[in-house]
């Protein structure tokens, strides 16, 4: 299970593995957040299970419910070379720590003229599909992509999660690492131990020539499913898994769309001012003449995440909508 990509793993265990390896490799790495230590069962879903037992409860620390204090402590320690991996359990709870993330972590390098910097990683979970309702499943990544000084990473599979998380921990800048909870137990390619995946590089998940489907996290799987279906009609969709959404991998995106001349961007965040707007704008700016149709953007409905199952299912953009959007670019 530890080498080769034929073996399978899950996002949940890949995250655990990356943290374990980072803690083992570098004594400056510390992990903290609510319930992360083994005395608290290593996280509500077990993402940090075993880590405090193996690396010590001084390095893997459970905290009170105090997100400002969590991120503040991470920032302060990082200023003098500690490498904190701080957990904000759910992305919605970044709302109580935005000052620390946006006014401090993102800005201290610049405001200090480079005298200090903030090499922290902030892990968080989110994602609709588990019936958690309006305050536990938001995708807010566009806020952070809009914030200079932050990097934003969002893996879709175990191998990427492992390699990207190690890169975030290595990185000299503050990185947000977003884990899609409904993907936690989905089997996928196992990580290659120790192998980093560079921040800022997208992955072509499926090559194609007729249209480019640009996505990240859970929606990559929907895009792939649609691509497979369309392939039977002879439409070959290229699927790009962005992996990092700040900085965006313009080179890969633009090269692909320059070839296919059609693009659809899909994410779970709502469309208005979402990351899709940025991507679509960049494509239009660079490939206006080449494009055969305007870039299509798909996002969740413009409302809070609903609880009721049929609403929750309809809320997230699905294969049907992706297929329809592709057809719009082809017509």
């Amino acid at each position, binding site marked *: 299970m530890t080498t080769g990509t034929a073996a399978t793993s899950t996002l949940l265990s890949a995250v655990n593995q990356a943290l374990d390896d980072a803690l083992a490799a570098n004594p400056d790495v510390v992990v903290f957040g*609510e319930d992360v230590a083994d005395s*608290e069962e290593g996280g509500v879903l077990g993402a940090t299970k075993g880590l405090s037992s193996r690396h010590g409860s001084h390095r893997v620390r459970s905290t009170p419910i105090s997100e400002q204090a969590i991120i503040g402590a991470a920032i302060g320690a990082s200023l003098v070379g500690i490498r904190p991996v701080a957990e904000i359990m759910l992305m919605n709870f970044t709302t*109580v720590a935005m000052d620390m993330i946006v006014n401090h972590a993102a800005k201290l390098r610049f405001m200090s003229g480079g005298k200090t910097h903030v090499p922290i990683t902030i892990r968080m979970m989110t994602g609709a599909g*588990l019936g958690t309702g309006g305050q*536990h499943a938001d995708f807010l990544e566009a806020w952070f992509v809009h914030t200079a000084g932050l990097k934003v990473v969002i893996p879709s599979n175990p191998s990427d999660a492992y390699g990207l998380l190690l890169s975030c921990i290595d990185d000299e800048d503050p990185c947000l690492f977003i884990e899609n909870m409904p993907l936690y137990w989905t089997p996928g390619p196992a990580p290659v131990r120790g192998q980093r995946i560079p921040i800022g590089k997208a992955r072509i998940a499926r090559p194609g020539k007729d249209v480019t489907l640009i996505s990240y996290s859970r929606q990559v799987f929907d895009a792939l499913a649609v691509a497979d279906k369309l392939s039977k009609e002879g439409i070959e969709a290229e699927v790009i898994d962005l992996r990092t959404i700040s900085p965006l991998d313009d080179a890969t995106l633009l090269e692909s769309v320059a070839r296919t001349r059609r693009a659809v961007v899909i994410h779970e965040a709502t469309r*208005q001012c979402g990351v899709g707007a940025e991507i679509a704008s960049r494509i239009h700016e660079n490939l206006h003449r080449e494009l055969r149709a305007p870039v299509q953007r798909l996002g969740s409905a413009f*409302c809070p995440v609903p*609880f009721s*199952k049929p609403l929750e299912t309809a809320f997230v953009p699905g294969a049907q909508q992706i297929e329809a959007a592709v057809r719009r670019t082809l017509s």
Partner: protein
Amino acid sequence: MNQARSLPDAPVLLEIYRRATLIKQNDDRFRAVIQSGKLVMPYYSPRGQEIIPAATSVHLSDDDYICTIYRGVHDMLAKGVTPRALWAELAGRVTGSCKGKGGPMHITDPARGVMVTTGIVGSSMPIANGLALAAQLRGEKRVTIAYFGDGASNIGAFHEALNLASLWKLPVVFICQNNRFAEHTRYESGTSIGRIADRAAAYSMPGEHVDGNDPDAMWSAAGQAIARARAGDGPTLIEAMTFRFHGHIFGDADGYMSKEEKASAIARDPVVLLRRRLIERGMATDAALAELERGIELEIDAALQFALDSPYPDLAELRRDVYATEIQP
């Protein structure tokens, strides 16, 4: 508090029992139904904490407000939300209190004064202040209760809300349901003071530490705090000691607590103890209580059936209630 504490009389204690039993039986059924797979949702059982809202709510009317949290079904039922509205909401049906759009963590029922249920730790308190402010501005005698957990006393919103309530002498009562755990974290691992009630001093506010599972003590403490708020004498912080029987989230393995700790709490089930007390005090017969319990069971049967028979909301609901009028970007 200097005022001598009186005991609840028979009708009051019976009413506390009725509400606590409704909560208990309702919770037993919820868990059974979830376990059966008939309904799927994250569920934060309040089993074991029944007495706190039951003994508090008998001091309140529909005109009084509460703000509660994801672990709040007991608070809602005690405040008068009907099992039908609740079950339908938890089943995600359009007949639910919030058309199925809110779900278990976000029940609202203004007719019963249930104004906000929040899933964000600490957020019930600042909003409760606003409801209290509205009553104060209008010269109304309404009181607002903010329920929250022990873990929530460590987050910033707690501090800001208590400071403001004290400064503005708001008619609000902050009731901390201290069940000794925040998710998997023991009280003392997250909280740097032995008693949360003692944090009231930081805001020049009365702080009461009380056994929340004892209906006499809880009734008395809540009653005095509510009376003080109604009289315009400002807020109170009550720390009500209790225990959750089913861990943080239903399905929780409880590996972070000792088996004995849990067993001993369950052995002192507050609803069972209250039943015994009613009989010991000669306030009710076993038969009368059994009758009451059967009645509640039937009400829950009907609520479950009502929920399952109700339709899901139309997909158009995704566009409704976002703004006063439909706006789609």
